[in-house]
């Protein structure tokens, strides 16, 4: 167990405080309408408690634990994605190699080998997977299968591994330590989801993309965008090496990217005619349902930070 840098400690306490507020509010609402069924809301908040508990214990335990933990999340996400998309029986041997890419990719992360980390999936796996498919020799549906397996690897391994790379970056903000940036990214991404929901529920009128996600409105999106920019400006200097101005941009970036990630995974589910991608997290659905925004925010925030500071 390491000493927790003060700003990261405050951030964690704030999150725990928010969860206490959420649980209390839930109990109050339930008391007011005892006849209505709030099981899903209850499950949702309970799952939040569990997710936050696991994440925080891993973050404060050790850097290696964090890298392994996100590697495991990549595994769950890849498994979930490959389970819901149509696939030929002959592709299982190729999929096996996609799974093997997870420990390798996270090994580069742990070694801090940036060059290999950014090209391993987009270049080496991109070329290797179709090669392995050719050896099996099934040509019917080849293009589609090659596309699906590589897309899955990009989403579940490449994109998510950026969260883990944040923790091995050299510390530039001593008050936040290495976990500050991770907390910033995760908190802002989830906060963006909440803001979109709250702004959309209270003001939402004009739909953005009704064909993909009928609940998304311009009011929700812009409200969250503004909230996140302001929030980013004030929180980034505390938790990350970014300045106030850079934090404003980071907030906007996370808000925009989070929205896109959300609707892209919605489009995938709509294409497959399913509501949730799994049932791993009670009240939330599958791991992809929960990490949809993070798939887009992680690499974009990472490279923004990397470009400016490293």
């Amino acid at each position, binding site marked *: 167990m390491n000493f927790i840098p003060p700003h990261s400690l405050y951030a964690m306490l704030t999150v725990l405080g928010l969860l206490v507020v959420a649980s209390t509010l839930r109990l109050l609402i339930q008391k007011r309408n005892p006849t209505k069924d709030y099981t899903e809301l209850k499950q949702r908040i309970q799952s939040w408690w569990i997710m936050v508990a696991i994440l925080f214990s891993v973050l404060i335990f050790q850097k290696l634990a964090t890298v392994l933990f996100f590697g495991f999340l990549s595994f769950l996400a890849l*498994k979930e994605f490959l389970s*819901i998309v149509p696939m030929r029986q002959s592709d*299982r041997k190729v999929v*096996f190699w996609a799974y093997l890419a997870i420990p390798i990719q996270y090994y580069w992360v742990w070694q801090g080998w940036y060059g290999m980390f950014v090209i391993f999936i987009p270049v080496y796996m991109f070329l290797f997977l179709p090669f392995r498919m050719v050896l099996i020799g099934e040509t019917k549906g080849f293009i589609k299968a090659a596309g699906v397996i590589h897309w899955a690897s990009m989403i579940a391994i490449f994109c998510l591994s950026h969260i883990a790379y944040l923790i091995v970056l050299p510390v530039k903000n001593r008050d936040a330590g290495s976990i500050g940036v991770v907390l910033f990214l995760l908190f802002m991404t989830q906060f963006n989801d909440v803001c979109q929901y709250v702004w959309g529920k209270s003001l939402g009128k004009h739909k953005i993309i009704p064909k993909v996600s009928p609940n998304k409105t311009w009011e929700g999106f812009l409200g969250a965008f503004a909230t996140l920019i302001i929030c980013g400006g004030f929180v980034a200097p505390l938790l990350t090496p970014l300045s106030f101005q850079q934090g404003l941009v980071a907030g906007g970036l996370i808000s925009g990217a989070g929205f896109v990630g959300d609707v892209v995974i919605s489009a995938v589910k709509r294409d497959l005619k399913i509501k949730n991608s799994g*049932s*791993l997290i009670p009240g939330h659905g599958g791991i992809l349902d929960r990490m949809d925004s993070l798939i887009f925010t992680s690499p974009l925030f990472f490279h923004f930070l990397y470009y400016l500071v490293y």
Partner: protein
Amino acid sequence: MNRLLKIIFFGLFIKPLVTIGLGLNIVGRKNLPMKGPAILAANHNSHLDTLVLMSMYPLSIIHKIRPVAAADYFLSNKFVAWFSLKIIGIIPLDRSGKTKREMLFSSCHKALDNDQILLIFPEGTRGKPEQISRLKKGIYYLIKDRNDTQVTPVVMHGLGRSLPRGEALFVPFNCDVIIGEKIKHCATFKEFFEIMAKKYVELINCCITRHDED
């Protein structure tokens, strides 16, 4: 001793394998019978089917779950026979047709009399990956004269991808386990199978890992 081995085997290997290596999307968990006598009738595509169904039960009652399995296959070699009978706890069934019908199910009836839960694969064999074959009649003769036992239909999908017949390489995939409501008693064999077939189609439509293109 065997019960201890069984608990170790399921607690340390099978349950972690099923939750992490596979991952289940369970629909209708409340329909799962927790007390015998009862019968689970599931489709069969992989050896994992049995292990997945058993892993849904708590370790404290796992010894009461008895898969009914082909004697010619599972008793063919000494080690497999010991493992199937003692660790998994199968009830061997003679598929050769030499045993008389009244005798055929005697050990199944005994297990049901002891409030155990039988796992039956009415297709009789694993068949092609992810396809449901024709149902065999055995299950109907088993429950025909028992007023205390009802059949719960279960459909699993996705396991045939993780470990299909004849393959040794295990590849992780999530799979669906859809548990239907108990089937009421039926007067005739035909009626029973019409209901079973209809239920199976209904349950298959709840799967999220399945596609029409398959």
